[in-house]
């Protein structure tokens, strides 16, 4: 019984939240890794593209709520998501047309493109704050829980409950659908294979008659769609706040580099490693340990490695360790050149 309580406790406070968080990071990291594979630069504007997509989804959600549209028990934001995706795609395509394409034609080094993307980051961040403001926006409506901790305790008779929020379940389901669709596209379709070929060897792809402009366009479309999905799910699960999308770049880049740059499978693995590390390192294990031994054996302290305020330090540590120990990542990816 005590062991089951310990497992339930850990599932409720570590496993479930970390899985949902990992899925959100994974969707973000897939976009970063895809752009790196195709265009060969670190796209720092990715976080703000996410933010812009989520903002558009929220604005449309408000509009729908104003019209009295509801898909209860599901959150209305699900209906806003397609609009967010379209907005994010529009942003990536316009940004490519007015910023990145110029630098590509100049055949600049990757670092120049990365710098240009930082410029874009500031422009988009300003635009988002201009439109929706810097405050946080809570958009979750619909049913809050699939199962509450209280119901779980009633059902099982355990002392510890497992609550699953609807947004967590939705995050996982949508993320899995998006990832399966992406991997199917990359593995099975002609356009997807052309993208992999282009990422593998640009010169040979050109010799094979693969149209580089088309490959780049598809990469941005996919990236925009994934970014808006990730950010909308994150906002539903937690809260929408513009500044979060600058901070979230760190776990996303840590996941990308940990998984192997340009490797979509690696990005997903990396994302979950980062998410689980972050949640576990900042979780207080005192009660968990308490269940595993005789009464009152648990230590006085919280048994928490790091305060939650420092959770981004976890990504940073992972980033530094990977770059020192295995710069190619888990699945051997590209190494960023200057």
């Amino acid at each position: 019984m005590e062991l089951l309580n310990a497992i339930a406790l850990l599932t409720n406070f570590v496993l479930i939240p970390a899985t949902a968080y990992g899925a959100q990071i994974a969707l973000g990291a897939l976009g970063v890794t895809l752009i790196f594979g195709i265009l060969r630069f670190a796209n720092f504007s990715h976080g703000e593209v996410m933010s812009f997509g989520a903002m558009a989804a929220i604005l449309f959600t408000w509009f729908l709520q104003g019209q009295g549209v509801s898909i209860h028990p599901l959150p209305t934001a699900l209906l806003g998501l397609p609009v967010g995706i379209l907005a994010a795609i529009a942003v990536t395509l316009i940004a490519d047309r007015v910023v990145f394409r110029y630098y590509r034609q100049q055949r600049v080094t990757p670092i120049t493109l990365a710098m240009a993307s930082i410029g874009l980051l500031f422009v988009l961040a300003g635009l988002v704050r201009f439109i929706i403001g810097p405050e946080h926006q809570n958009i979750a409506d619909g049913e809050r829980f699939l199962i509450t901790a209280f119901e779980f305790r009633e059902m099982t008779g355990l002392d510890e409950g497992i609550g699953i929020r609807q947004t967590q379940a939705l995050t996982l389901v949508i993320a899995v659908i998006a990832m399966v669709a992406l991997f199917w596209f990359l593995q099975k379709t002609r356009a997807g294979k052309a993208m992999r070929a282009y990422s593998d060897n640009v010169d040979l792809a050109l010799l094979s008659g693969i149209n580089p402009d088309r490959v780049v366009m598809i990469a941005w479309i996919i990236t925009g769609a994934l970014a808006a999905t990730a950010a909308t799910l994150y906002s539903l699960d937690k809260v929408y706040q513009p500044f979060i999308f600058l901070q979230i770049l760190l776990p996303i880049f840590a996941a990308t580099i940990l998984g192997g740059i340009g490797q979509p499978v690696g990005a997903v693995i990396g994302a979950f490693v980062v998410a689980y590390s972050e949640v576990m390192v900042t979780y207080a294990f005192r009660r968990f340990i308490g269940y595993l031994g005789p009464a009152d054996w648990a230590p006085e302290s919280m048994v928490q490695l790091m305060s939650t305020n420092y959770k981004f330090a976890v990504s940073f540590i992972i980033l530094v360790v990977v770059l020192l120990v295995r710069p190619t990542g888990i699945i051997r990816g590209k190494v960023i050149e200057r």
Partner: protein
Amino acid sequence: MSFLAATHMTCGYGGANIIEDCSITVEQGEIAVVVGPNGAGKSTAMKAVFGMLELKEGSVVLDGQDITSVPPQDRVPLGMAFVPQNGNVFVTMTVEENLEMGAFIRNDDITPTMEQVYELFPILYEKRNQLAGELSGGQRQQVAVGRALMTQPKLLMLDEPTAGVSPVVMDDLFDRIIDVARTGIAVLMVEQNARQALEIADHGFVMVQGKNRFTDTGEALLANPEVRRSFLGG
């Protein structure tokens, strides 16, 4: 007029000319080989023929059509295929995917061509689901040639196809290249292994310091005492 006539080509990188007044011609169903010492401009001549370098003088005519100013990508649909010396396969993709990518410009059914390639290189059929990056050097070269053949080219250009493979594999590759030429494709290749390459060549071009030095049939060049002494080691 020859099927491919690259005549009086002069070009180079920046100011200096690497090749000067260089001419290379290939007929359909024949193998033409460019040989010469290191730094003679053999690979540069190949790049010039494929349009990867801008010509200062001279012209490239394929099947009666002047393609001198056509960019390289647009030469692929015209029937030219190029196998570079390095990076000539997609290492993270399977053998079969490599062949599919080779046929990217085609919208018709590619299965018959793929079967022909597998017939030519049976080992590729066995390894069709393996990543090209995991294959041996000789097998990779077969993938590279196979990928190029997928466009159903009229002219196949190979830049040192036997670089870094063992002598046995080299002989085998040359046999396959003869098979390719027999199907009516014009083959143009640059080779380090001058003697073996000239043995299978219908025409040979010996280049020295960016210029044509000797031009003759492969047989005649092998018999030419001066060529033997200077370039074939006696």
